[in-house]
């Protein structure tokens, strides 16, 4: 991948993380039912973590000599949701982020880009942990 392609990919991941943070916020604010007591805090915690991930991506882009670009298109409806549905959406979003980091890892591994490879590997580990934690919550 060229320098430009690396930056484009990192900006894409930045959009994934920022969108995810807004989704978490929205889910935390729209979740209803008794389980809200438990799930709202989990969703808010995940929101903070996705913002941290976005910060790491932005730093990485700066380290590569560019400025981060934020381009997101998101419309979240004014609909209440259940805890189960909110967690299912959260798993879907985390799996998508995991896949995106895996794709980055695969690309940078092939080209021997050690800096990005280490970064991508660490993010894959983090996202895998998130997915597993959320999947545990959804187990019957």
């Amino acid at each position, binding site marked *: 991948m060229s320098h430009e392609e690396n930056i484009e990919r990192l900006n894409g991941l930045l959009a994934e993380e920022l969108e995810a943070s807004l989704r978490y916020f929205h889910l935390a604010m729209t979740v209803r039912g008794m389980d809200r007591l438990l799930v709202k805090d989990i969703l808010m915690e995940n929101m903070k973590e996705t913002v941290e991930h976005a910060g790491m991506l932005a730093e990485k882009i700066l380290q590569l000599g560019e400025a981060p670009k934020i381009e997101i*298109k998101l419309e979240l409806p004014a609909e209440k949701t259940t805890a189960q549905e909110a967690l299912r959406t959260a798993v*879907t*979003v985390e799996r*998508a*982020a995991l896949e995106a980091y895996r794709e980055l890892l695969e690309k940078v591994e092939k080209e021997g880009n050690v800096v990005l490879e280490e970064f991508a590997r660490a993010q894959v580990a983090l996202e895998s942990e998130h997915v597993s934690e959320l999947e545990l919550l959804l187990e019957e």
Partner: protein
Amino acid sequence: METWKEFEQNPITHSAAHHLVAIAELLEDRGYARVSDVARLLEITRGSASVTLKGLKQRGLVIEDDRRFLGLSEEGAQIASGISVKKRVMHTMFVDLLGVDARQADVDTCKIEHLVSNETADRVSRLLSFLQSGASEARAFVAALEKFDGWKEHDPAEFPSKDIESLELREPEGHDDSN
């Protein structure tokens, strides 16, 4: 029920329509479709595509195999095909018959392609069929339209123009002024 409320209950949202058509296009062009391909084609994040596709899978319109390749169910394929055809029909009418700028026609078509009824799309396609038939009546119709003074260009910024006041316009049934 008022029409605007029916919009809210439309089984296919604007976003869902784009996802179904994107899968159909990818399957036709490449023979496969993955979440990442849909996201790239629609220029959205993988997360957004995944969440919308999750809803479409739950509704049985999109299917995903063990290797995470996407496909359309019979109903999903039918909806995607209907939207694609409606898009082309309405676009053709806007550009070829009404003389709307092609880029504006793209925007307007995108807004209605998943909302316009089969009945309306069918009537429009029959009108286009007549106009494209080459029949002398069709040619005469187009010629008369082009000669008509009121057909000449107007500034869209001035809409509604004074000419419209003289028209006998039909009030849509079920229209509710409170909306």
